[in-house]
């Protein structure tokens, strides 16, 4: 990152926030950068401070320390309405006494745009979110997903420089969630708007994000690209949080590590992990059942999860979880073999765990 010549669009440096002194929770120093047209996902369990961070960027909370620079200008001292950004909350906060159109154009009205221009712009943006002809409708006629799209339109019509999303779809059903996710991706591409999204949903995060920041109890656990957080968990907690099912003991020696699955090659980024006892984190989708494999396994049980089958198998007295695409039915106690589908494995020093 430091080698880049141009200034990043958004630069957050050492942002900290402390709630009332009596409360123990505080958000430790947070720093990150964000480029135009990228989506940063702030991921973490509830109470990790992810919403706090978002509210600091929005200006709804005042940071104790640190600075936020957007488009080359510091904005951390500005009130929220002067920051030229937009935020979408869990609830839509559409005003029930106004029509769809009036809700969408309210930001333009606040800027003093004349009403006929407002109307043209709002109808245009309603078209883009797939709500053509909804301008005159009362709010009560909308479904949940439509309401979210109106809220999105309202936030986009003021052409914000940055869009903040605070678990925007958590109240929608899974199908709508996925749809709204692809809307967000489309808008990001078409408008080149940088976005920051807060979520605790791993799947949604991985599907939408370009950059990631994982928080726990107000402290950063890991940040980086999709590859980083998918393949290279920084510690055991992140590995668990990112849904890595298999954590195995092993002895590392140089570029190899010895485990009950055999002698494996270590990921090049892990070379610096000191030799000796380590833990190997292994995604269940990297293991496959294979009769011909030399690593023998016994099936302990399996359950179908809609798209894949989760198989529990016993290898050399240790339990591992394996994901098989599609529906498969294995009988308990069946003898089979396991094959590793990756060329190298990620390992963590034992004391970090």
């Amino acid at each position, binding site marked *: 990152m430091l080698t880049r010549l141009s200034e990043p669009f958004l630069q957050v440096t050492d942002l900290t926030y402390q709630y*009332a002194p009596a409360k123990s929770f505080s958000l430790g120093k947070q720093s990150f950068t964000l480029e135009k047209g990228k989506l940063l996902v702030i991921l973490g369990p509830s109470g990790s401070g992810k919403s706090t961070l978002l509210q600091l960027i*929005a*200006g*709804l909370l005042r940071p104790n320390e640190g600075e936020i620079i957007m488009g080359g200008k510091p904005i951390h001292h500005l*009130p*929220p*309405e002067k*920051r*030229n*950004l*937009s*935020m979408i*909350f869990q*609830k839509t*906060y559409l*005003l*029930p*006494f106004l029509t769809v159109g009036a809700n969408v154009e*309210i*930001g333009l009205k*606040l*800027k003093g745009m004349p009403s006929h221009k407002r109307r043209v712009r709002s109808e245009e943006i309603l078209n883009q979110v797939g709500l053509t002809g909804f301008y005159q409708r009362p709010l*009560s006629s909308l479904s949940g997903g439509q309401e979210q799209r109106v809220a999105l339109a*309202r*936030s986009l019509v*003021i052409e914000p420089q940055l869009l*903040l999303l605070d678990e925007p779809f958590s109240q929608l059903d899974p199908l709508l969630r996925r749809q709204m996710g692809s809307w967000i991706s489309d808008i990001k591409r078409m408008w080149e708007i940088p976005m920051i999204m807060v979520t605790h949903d791993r799947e949604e995060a991985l599907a939408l994000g370009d950059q990631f920041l994982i928080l726990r109890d107000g402290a950063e656990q890991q940040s980086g690209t999709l590859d980083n957080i998918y393949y290279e968990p920084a510690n055991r907690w992140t590995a668990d949080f990112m849904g890595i099912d298999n954590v195995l003991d092993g002895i590392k020696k140089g570029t190899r590590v010895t485990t009950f699955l055999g002698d494996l090659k270590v990921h090049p980024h892990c070379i610096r992990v000191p030799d000796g006892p380590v833990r190997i984190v292994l995604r269940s989708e990297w293991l496959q059942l294979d009769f011909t494999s030399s690593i023998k396994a016994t099936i302990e049980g399996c359950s179908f999860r809609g798209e894949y089958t989760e198989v529990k198998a016993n290898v050399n007295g240790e339990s591992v979880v394996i994901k098989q695409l599609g529906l498969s039915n294995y009988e308990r106690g069946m003898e089979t073999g396991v094959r590793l589908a990756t060329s190298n494995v990620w390992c963590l020093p034992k004391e970090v765990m």
Partner: protein
Amino acid sequence: MRRNGVNHGKSYAFLHAIMISLFFLPFIPLLAWSFAQQWRFPDLVPTVSERAWLYVFSTHSQVKDAIFNSLGLAAVTSLLSQVVAYPAARALGLYVKRWNKTIRLLLIAPILIPGISIAIGVHVLFLHSGLSDQWLGVLLSHLIPAIPYSIYLLYGFYAGYDIGYEKQFRLLGAGRLQTFRLVELPLLRSVLSLSILFSFLISWSQYLFTVFIGGGNLITLPMLLFSTLSSGDYSLMGALCMVFVLPALIIVIFSSIGVKKDLFEEKEASRVDPIV
């Protein structure tokens, strides 16, 4: 779910009759007396005369002045109590966490402490500070129950208010005042109008404070009513009662219309319900 149409209708009509007679019956003698010249014992209908009403509406009667005094006092009381109550209610409902309940107890206590106790104490106080026998003193005394009542009503609104609406609008570029005008005020509207109307009513029907603090210099409608009561002129009493009830009637009609229009409340109510 009308399985039992006929029965349903009958019991509904019965309920209706009971409610109407319960709540309206007491007004019948009042209304009748206001049009009575004489109403001797066994008669069910009085001999009719408009005397009382003519007196109420005559230009040289005390009644007109009393009505104007009451109206003016109630209007000023109502507006002032909103001005004082609004910021306090907002602060308590949204921001003040520590001591919240205690502060509320102190602010709301005057509603539940009997008027006679307050009136006597405040009378002595105002005698000392020279506020008694004055318009200002009476106004201040009317504010004593009105402000807590407004705080109570408005606090109820802010305790269940989702500040997210305001956050959202600040982020869309609205300043503090615009947020107030476009978001807060429309959402607050029905509760605020209730608060305005009820603090008006508190002042309008105030007798003890007016008579103690005003010392008889400021004649209001309730004072006239009490003096008529001791004079035994039932016809005038009936007519005055009718005038006295009028604002209350307007308020009921207004609030029942207001409640229906309140889409926001309806939506919130259904959201609160955990199962339906």
